[in-house]
């Protein structure tokens, strides 16, 4: 069996590949390249690769100066009028200010700070001299725009280093000419080129004009810094937008204001797929502040344009208010009839049988389960659908301008999105506009967590702007946001395992009960043939039964891992308890000797790296210490997104099942850390997100309708319940990879295992509020 059942994948039901999945595939291809060196070795690129990486297709003098032309505006050059450009990502002014462009979406994961840190490091820049600006959307210039799957650092680390190193070499070349000194006696540090054997030096600002006249460095000569010489990478740097954020300056999609702009709301059918038959449009148009109300038929694609009623007006409040007064007749003949209650009862009926489709099988699990010398247990786990709940509700602004006098139509878009260029093909297919007719501004995202990879809120506003002929900002209400999400898919797993007379885990079986959407694959609803501990055991079997649904689902922070970790890492603890053995000892025994799961793939699980983080977390949390009554420690490990993460949680539970999570100790190996502050923030956030979700979040649907609507019935963890988080990194020399997701999955099983240790009650269902717990 191979890994084809891997459902971390994000295939569209149409069969095209989602951007996040595409990035994953690209990274995996990279990781599978034979003889790939660890990223911190000196990496040489051939010229073709370099040109591809630099995103500049033209051949000659690709890094030569592009001076501001007659049409250039201050905006083109940030606030540094007269700056000169060293390459697509870097401009330096004669005053020494360095502008570095960030080309990928920032949604709170910190890449707008981390990626420029990599460039600045290789350049030899002083961080205080750097100003980071969001780039335009232009893949011919910057390479892929997009973020997802915790892959951005992994896929751009070498690109950023190349940009920085080439700029450094151009400064050195300029300094060599200016000071009449040999290149190899010069070095870059603190935004200055200095001479090794004298106190001669020239600043980047002094050299800027000459540096851009240097020819393109031969990429084969580029040598990346040794990590021992790093002065920026690995330090703590505050987010580059923090001053704007704390000052309330406009940054987010929802903050966009365009002259003549009107405001829009869009009402879709509460049951997914329902279509508008009629609506009280005439009455609505008479409401104060409403300038237009009309029906959009949509194209029956929930990722593009669903049928609904559009309201346009002079303020967001006017359209929100009018939306509450809409009276719409829906045709629900083909709409979703999904029922969570029915999914649960169906799963409970079939869980003890094997799945309808085999995922993987090795050895003989049945023989192991029926061996009288073995102890065998089974368990049924359940996890619900959950919503993304980005603090910034879905929104987008568009200005569709019909061409006059034979000119083509144009479209300007301001989008908070994880996948800016994903809008192009949709705009082409739905509105017949070519890429040249579309200008995209990528806005900062007020959270995403996998939510903003689809284009439906973009299609909605384009259709509305096209109809009314003015710029429009579409804002979803929180109710729209919760009831029309692409949810983290719910599901069930029935697991069985046995331990031998020595208490060693010898067999494991998983019947995965997941979902498909109208027959198509759903991100996160799958079980990998390589899932831990399948490959660690001689006897293992996994099978699946899929339920077809019409509720839209999509990637949600650590797809698949965020639920499978809960099942597997809880059940391994169940087996350890059954064997009467220490959980840590059993987990380490399962890992065995250090090896790659997928030999040659440095993005696969490495049992040695796993062992190290498990031991480190246990050590830092003082695993095995005596606990007071009602207190317990729980341990879990999970590998996802090329990251090895272990967590130990301390909880206490009182007689009324009131839970307190006292602290969470986390050990992580994602290779070298770029921004220590950003990295710890991602881990803290993932832990609190994991707890928030496990504690009380659950989306249920009946008759195709989501039953929750706003924060009063769908709760986020609040500050008094935030545990202390103690974070430790093993900065191994493997390629750095992303940290937006992988610290989340181990949290839930670690909490569940800690609850068992505290009070002897096993948690097999999320959220905990369904099991009678409070926080």
């Amino acid at each position, binding site marked *: 069996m191979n890994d084809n059942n891997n459902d971390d994948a994000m295939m569209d039901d149409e069969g095209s590949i989602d951007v996040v999945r595409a990035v994953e595939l690209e990274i995996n291809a990279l990781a599978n390249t034979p003889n790939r060196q660890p990223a911190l070795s000196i990496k040489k690129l051939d010229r073709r690769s370099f040109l591809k990486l630099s995103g500049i297709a033209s051949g000659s003098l690709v890094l030569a100066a592009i001076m501001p032309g007659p049409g250039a505006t201050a905006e083109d050059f940030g606030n540094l009028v007269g700056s000169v450009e060293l390459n697509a990502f870097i401009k330096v002014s004669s005053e020494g200010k360095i502008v570095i462009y960030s080309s990928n979406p920032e949604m709170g994961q910190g890449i707008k700070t981390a990626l420029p840190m990599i460039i600045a490091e290789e350049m030899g820049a002083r961080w205080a001299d750097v100003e980071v600006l969001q780039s335009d959307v232009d893949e011919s210039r910057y390479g892929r725009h997009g973020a997802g799957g915790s892959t951005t650092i992994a896929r751009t680390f070498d690109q950023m280093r190349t940009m920085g190193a080439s700029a450094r070499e151009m400064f050195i070349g300029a300094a060599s000419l200016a000071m009449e000194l040999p290149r190899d006696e010069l070095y870059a540090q603190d935004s200055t080129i200095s001479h090794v054997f004298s106190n001669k030096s020239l600043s980047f600002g002094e050299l800027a004009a000459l540096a851009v006249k240097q020819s393109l460095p031969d990429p084969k000569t580029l040598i990346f810094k040794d990590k021992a010489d790093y002065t920026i990478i690995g330090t703590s740097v505050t987010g580059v937008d923090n001053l704007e954020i704390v000052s*309330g300056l406009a940054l987010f999609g929802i903050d966009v204001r365009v002259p003549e702009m009107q405001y829009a709301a869009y009402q879709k059918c509460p049951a997914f797929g329902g279509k508008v038959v009629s609506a009280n449009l005439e009455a609505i148009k008479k409401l104060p502040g409403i300038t237009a109300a009309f029906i959009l038929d949509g194209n029956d694609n929930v990722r593009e344009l669903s049928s609904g009623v559009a309201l346009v007006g002079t303020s967001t409040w006017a359209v929100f208010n009018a939306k509450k007064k809409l009276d719409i007749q829906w045709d629900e003949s083909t709409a979703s009839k999904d029922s969570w209650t029915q999914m649960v009862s169906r799963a409970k009926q079939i869980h003890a049988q094997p799945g309808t489709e085999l995922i993987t099988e090795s050895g003989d699990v049945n023989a192991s389960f029926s061996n009288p010398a073995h102890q065998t247990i089974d368990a049924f786990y359940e996890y619900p659908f959950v919503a993304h709940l980005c603090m*910034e509700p879905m929104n987008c602004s568009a200005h569709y301008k019909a061409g006059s006098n034979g000119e083509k139509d144009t479209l300007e878009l301001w989008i908070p999105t994880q996948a800016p260029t994903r809008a192009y093909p949709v705009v082409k297919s739905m509105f017949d506009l070519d890429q040249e007719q579309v200008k995209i501004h990528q806005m900062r995202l007020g959270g995403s967590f996998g939510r903003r990879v689809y284009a439906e809120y973009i299609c909605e506003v384009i259709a509305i702007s096209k109809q009314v002929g003015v710029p429009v900002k579409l804002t979803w209400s929180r109710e729209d946001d919760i009831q029309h999400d692409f949810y983290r898919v719910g599901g069930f797993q029935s697991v069985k395992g046995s331990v031998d007379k020595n208490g060693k885990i010898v067999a494991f079986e998983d019947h995965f009960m997941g979902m498909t959407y109208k027959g198509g694959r759903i991100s996160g609803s799958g079980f990998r043939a390589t899932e831990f501990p399948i490959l660690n055991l001689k006897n293992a079997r996994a099978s699946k039964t899929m339920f077809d649904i019409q509720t839209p689902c999509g990637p949600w922070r650590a797809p698949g891992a965020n639920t499978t970790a809960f099942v597997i890492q809880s059940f391994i603890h169940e087996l350890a308890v059954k064997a009467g053995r220490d959980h840590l000892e059993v987990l380490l025994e399962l890992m065995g000797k250090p090896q790659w799961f997928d030999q040659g793939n440095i993005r696969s699980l490495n049992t040695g790296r796993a062992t190290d983080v498990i031991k480190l977390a246990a050590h830092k949390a003082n695993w095995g210490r005596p606990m007071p009554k009602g207190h317990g420690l729980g341990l879990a490990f999970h590998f996802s997104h090329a990251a090895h993460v272990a967590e130990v949680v301390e909880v206490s539970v009182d007689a009324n099942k009131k839970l307190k999570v006292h602290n969470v100790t986390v050990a992580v190996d994602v290779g070298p850390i770029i921004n220590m502050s950003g990295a710890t923030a991602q881990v803290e956030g993932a832990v609190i997100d994991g707890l928030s979700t496990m504690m009380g979040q659950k989306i249920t649907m009946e008759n195709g309708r989501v039953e929750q609507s706003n*924060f009063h019935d769908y709760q986020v963890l609040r500050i008094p319940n*935030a545990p202390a988080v103690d974070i430790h990194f093993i900065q191994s020399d493997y390629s750095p990879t992303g940290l937006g997701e992988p610290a989340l999955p181990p949290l839930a099983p670690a909490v569940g295992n800690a609850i068992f240790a505290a009070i002897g009650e096993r948690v097999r269902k999320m959220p905990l509020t369904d099991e009678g717990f409070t926080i």
Partner: protein
Amino acid sequence: MAKYQLNINGEDIDVDVDPQMPLLWVLRDEIGLVGTKFGCGIAQCGACTVHVSGQPIRSCITPASMLAGQPIRTIEGLANGTELHPLQQAWIDVDVPQCGYCQAGQIMSAAALLEQNPSPTDNDIDAAMVGNYCRCGAYNRIRKAIHLASENTTTPFYDASTPNIEQIDGDMKGEQA
């Protein structure tokens, strides 16, 4: 429609809007002060927090016409000219924001707290900040930044100096020994 005057960040501003329109949308759509954020519209998340006569209120449910004549302060008016409020500086020093969307509301709630209680305990902070969601989970840094702004007793960055590889390696060896 109703004409009335609001005093926002020390400036008198004439508006002519529906008297029921909440302050949030008057600020964002009519006046163009977009620092105050929309999160839920039902006073559950705190993203829209502003001060009215020094008290934190949820602007998403408060009709602006009720506030005529009362001083309103928003995130844009928190700094003293170019000098940041100590909380704004602490937010930067501790690197609090992840996505950053809720932070205007967080800072306004925290500013009201410090005006009442210049040296809050963790419990005081929890009580004052319980109404502000942070979906990214930056709560520990929020707490730390409030302490930093109030007493300057904690070091800025969450984890600036540790861990270092040698220390962890040493610990690991200790573990294995």
